[in-house]
């Protein structure tokens, strides 16, 4: 059973977090994400959870890492400037394999940029923004419904893969109100249990994910951002150990690329193929609806990182890929790496969503 609501995207995100069992939110308000914190400040304590307003985004990220080690499903929400401040501790979360969810309702950057306007300018920052090699998971909602559903999914992926997972929303979807159907229950995938007596960072299974030795459950665990051995103790000068650790952190995500892929393929025989994620999905949908042309294909991506490169091969007749993004072509460049046909970026900056007419013009323009 489901019940309808008329909710803002940010409200749907907060409600999705509550449905997923989020029990800790640490954050610092910033437009256009503030409604998420506001909603959870009102609701989370009533459900036995903790809402903590931190002094800044560096501390916000630190707080959810600590809460996660204490067993909480933990989340923060921010936008560009706060996201930049979180980068150091995002690397710490990746290195320490801490499950946590970070929502970035993207606004125009760089710097404080356009607080109230929409953008998708942080798509490469989320993948590569902290120093060193690592891998994360990033999801992009295109509807208020997906603000809810993908938030739930973020928590499940974070727990399963022991990694920070990012809901890379945008102001358009975050602030829009539309119809949403709320399910009675949502799926919950927990953390892999820790086998007592094992070294806490030993990943013996083929999925390369160690069991989670939660604080306060009797295990002696040392958690450090330094390169560590499987006991968790610093071993920062061993070349082999460092390579093995970083390779494992990347491979546990990259090896599961197909398993976590989430996309729709529409008109796979088409020659002209749109690819979109987040708000521009809506404009492509409108063009597809208006033109009803089987020669226009559409790849709609929900899990953008790890990038679902195999999806591209489903369009066997593709002569051109068209990529509308509210940035200067960040994911278009990723797509160029994987295909042999021309990739046409349709960038848009300034804070407004592509109009259907703009996409039709790009479609009709000669390559």
């Amino acid at each position, binding site marked *: 059973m489901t019940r309808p*609501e*008329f909710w803002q995207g940010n409200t749907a995100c907060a409600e999705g977090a509550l449905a997923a069992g989020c029990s800790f939110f640490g954050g610092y308000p910033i437009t256009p994400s503030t409604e998420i914190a506001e909603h959870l400040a009102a609701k989370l304590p009533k459900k036995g959870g903790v809402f903590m307003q931190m002094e800044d985004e560096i501390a916000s990220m630190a707080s959810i890492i600590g809460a996660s080690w204490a067993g909480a499903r933990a989340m923060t929400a921010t936008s560009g400037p706060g996201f930049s401040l979180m980068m150091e501790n995002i690397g710490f979360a990746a290195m320490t394999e801490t499950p946590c969810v970070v929502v970035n309702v993207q606004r125009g950057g760089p710097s404080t940029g356009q607080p109230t306007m929409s953008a998708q300018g942080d798509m490469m920052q989320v993948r590569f923004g902290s120093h060193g090699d690592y891998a994360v998971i990033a999801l992009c909602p295109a509807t208020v419904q997906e603000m809810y559903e993908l938030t739930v999914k973020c928590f499940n992926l974070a727990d399963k893969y022991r990694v920070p997972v990012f809901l890379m929303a945008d102001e358009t979807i975050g*602030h829009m109100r539309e119809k949403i159907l709320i399910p009675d229950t949502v799926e919950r995938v927990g953390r892999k249990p820790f086998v007592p007596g094992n070294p806490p960072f030993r990943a013996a299974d083929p999925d390369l994910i160690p069991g989670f030795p939660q604080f306060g459950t009797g295990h002696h665990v040392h958690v450090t951002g330094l390169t560590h051995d499987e006991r968790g103790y610093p071993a920062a000068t061993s070349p082999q150990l460092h390579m093995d650790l970083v390779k494992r952190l990347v491979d546990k995500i990259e090896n599961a690329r197909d398993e976590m892929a989430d996309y729709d393929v529409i008109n796979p025989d088409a020659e002209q193929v749109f690819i979109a994620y987040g708000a521009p999905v809506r*404009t492509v949908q409108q063009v597809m609806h208006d033109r009803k042309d089987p020669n226009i294909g559409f790849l709609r991506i929900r899990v953008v990182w790890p990038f679902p490169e195999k999806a591209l091969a489903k369009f066997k007749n593709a002569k051109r890929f068209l990529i509308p993004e509210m940035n200067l072509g960040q994911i278009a460049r990723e797509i160029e790496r994987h295909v042999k046909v021309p990739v046409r970026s349709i960038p848009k900056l300034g804070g407004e969503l592509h109009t259907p007419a703009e996409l039709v013009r790009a479609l009709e323009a000669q390559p």
Partner: protein
Amino acid sequence: MRHEVRFSGFGGQGIILSAVILGRAAVMYDNKFAAQTQVYGPEARGGASMSQVIIDDEEILYPKVSDPDIYVIMSQEGFEKYGAVARDPAVMLVDSTLVHSRPECRYIGIPATREAKQTLKRDIVANIVMLGALVAATHVVSEEALKKAILDSVPKGTEDLNIKAMQLGLQLGKQP
């Protein structure tokens, strides 16, 4: 049937709430689809505030209003910034107490602020008067749905006042 409704006035009149109530009425009580967006800027405090809602029988794909067929304009500055572009076959409801210009499209003058002040002694409910008039003139949602959505959205203790405002608007908006 797809309708694109644009509301504009000054910050504090409840311009955004009006669009939210209308969208809520359509989704929750008329079993339709709606998508509501707004301008988020410093002008939301004072200045010209603007919000829009699309109401459709089918799922809404592109969620931004491109060419409104219904305008609700409650300030002169709002008219100049967001209403002056209106052309037939659009219809505009203007708060004739506060807006001196008239559009090139069909329009209905509703003395919402004056009536709210004189009849109900509270000009704060002028936006609800306009909503009532809008529904009487365009039937974009049902009267029953509007009433329920208003009751969902207004502060406790103000329900009677707001329903009176809606009913006043329904009378003012009925076409002769």
